[in-house]
């Protein structure tokens, strides 16, 4: 898995700035150094997180398309809702602060869930403590997006711990 990350980094570097010929040595050396540096950062991050990121397993990548579609649909719907709020002649908000349980097993899954909520306009994660999220929502409709648990299930599914 760590090797996979290394290969991914090398591929990204090659795609972004890669020299496709082997004449000259300076640019490839720069590439090696920068890939090695970022890989070193990843290893430190993995240590700090107390374990590998399950996300890099092949199974998670297979589940990614469905997650991305669901993500795009939810974010688009939330964007339309908040746009209506912004453009309405009289701004009427009913802000609320709710505690939501993040039922993901890994910290990576919980962070993904918290970021999902924050990216969705109308809801934002104020804090994450243990397995509880502090979510601030603009009104009842925005709040319902989180409270109905569908985002939680999406992240559970890509984490691989859905029932």
């Amino acid at each position, binding site marked *: 898995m760590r090797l996979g990350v290394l290969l991914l980094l090398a591929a990204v570097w090659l795609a972004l700035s890669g020299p496709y010929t082997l004449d000259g040595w300076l640019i490839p050396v720069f590439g090696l150094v920068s890939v090695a540096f970022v890989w070193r950062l990843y290893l430190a991050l993995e240590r700090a997180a107390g374990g590998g990121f399950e996300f890099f397993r092949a199974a998670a990548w297979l589940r990614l398309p469905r997650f991305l579609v669901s993500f795009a649909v939810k974010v688009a719907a939330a964007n339309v809702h908040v746009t209506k709020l912004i453009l309405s002649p009289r701004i009427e908000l009913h802000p609320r602060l709710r505690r939501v349980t993040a039922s993901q097993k890994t910290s990576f899954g919980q962070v993904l869930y918290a970021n999902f909520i924050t990216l969705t306009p109308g809801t934002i994660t*104020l804090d994450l403590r243990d397995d509880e999220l*502090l979510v601030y929502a603009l009104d009842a409709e925005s709040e319902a997006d989180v409270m109905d648990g569908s985002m939680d299930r999406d992240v559970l599914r890509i984490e691989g711990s859905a029932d």
Partner: protein
Amino acid sequence: MSGALDIATAVLLVAGGFFCIVGGVGLHRFSEFYQRTHAASVTDTAGAGLMLLGLMLQGGLSMVTLKLLLVLAFLLFSSPAIAHALVKAAHGHGLALDLEIEDEPGRDGDAAG
């Protein structure tokens, strides 16, 4: 066919621009710090997303499209992290929220009390 692609790109760019402006308008019309961050996230997601999508259509299956995809991916990771850092800092320093409904504090209570 390239005519249809160009039209699709134009529509996506205009739509993206519309959401960017909406985000800016919301930033001014909303009355409180925490509410304004929601308006900004419209710009981050719908605005930037639609624009990048429109540009990808022009790139076709090429390195340009791959780079645009990476830009989108990095944006989707960095913008919630920044939004969260902003509101958590504000909340932690006790900037009051204007709330209609609030759940009871958790086991440890809130940083802002």
